[in-house]
């Protein structure tokens, strides 16, 4: 049973550039959430996708956008990168009706460095 996968593992970008991060949910899950974790902090919710639509959004600017595909995989896009966007980006999936509906499973993360 494959868990949540994310790509790439690491990424280095320059200020002003755009980046796309990818996530495949755990088998049987249909909901994907994205989180940003700054160094020394707990993860912060960016947004959540369900049925290919953004269902809920945290306190992040419009530079952060996403997409969910029919196979439930998801992308996180960040435009006009700032130094402060340097962080670990975590994807989580949920929605397994056979188990705990709200239980989140996290991927290994993508570490983004903006120079």
């Amino acid at each position, binding site marked *: 049973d494959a868990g949540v996968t994310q790509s790439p593992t690491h990424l280095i970008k320059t200020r002003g550039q755009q980046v796309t991060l990818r996530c495949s949910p755990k088998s049987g899950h249909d*909901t994907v*959430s994205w*989180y940003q974790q700054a160094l020394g902090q*707990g993860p912060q919710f960016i947004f959540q996708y369900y049925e290919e639509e953004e269902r*809920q959004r945290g306190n992040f600017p419009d530079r952060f956008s996403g997409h969910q595909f029919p196979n439930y995989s998801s992308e996180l896009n960040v435009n006009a990168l700032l130094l402060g966007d340097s962080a670990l980006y975590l994807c989580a999936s949920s929605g397994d009706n056979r188990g705990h509906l*709200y239980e*989140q499973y996290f991927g*290994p*993360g993508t570490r983004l460095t903006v120079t």
Partner: protein
Amino acid sequence: GIQVEQSPPDLILQEGANSTLRCNFSDSVNNLQWFHQNPWGQLINLFYIPSGTKQNGRLSATTVATERYSLLYISSSQTTDSGVYFCAVGALGGSQGNLIFGKGTKLSVKP
């Protein structure tokens, strides 16, 4: 919004010692999870425990939803238990997936 507070922020133990980590939350929840974040950043699910008590080997957890707190117990700690432990909650009435995390407890187990 809901607030999550974890204590203590840092904990240093000798191998073999027991510990209790606490998580207080400010409102009713439909989800409470404990995670262990390893040095590579992976969040590992420990417990899904919006209420009640669960045990898994040397780890156990209790959530008293009416009093808005949860406890994570680690017995006979090992060096591999080192890392950051996070409590995360989902607010009652919120959609699934919007977890609010505490700041974590950094555990260091010395040999």
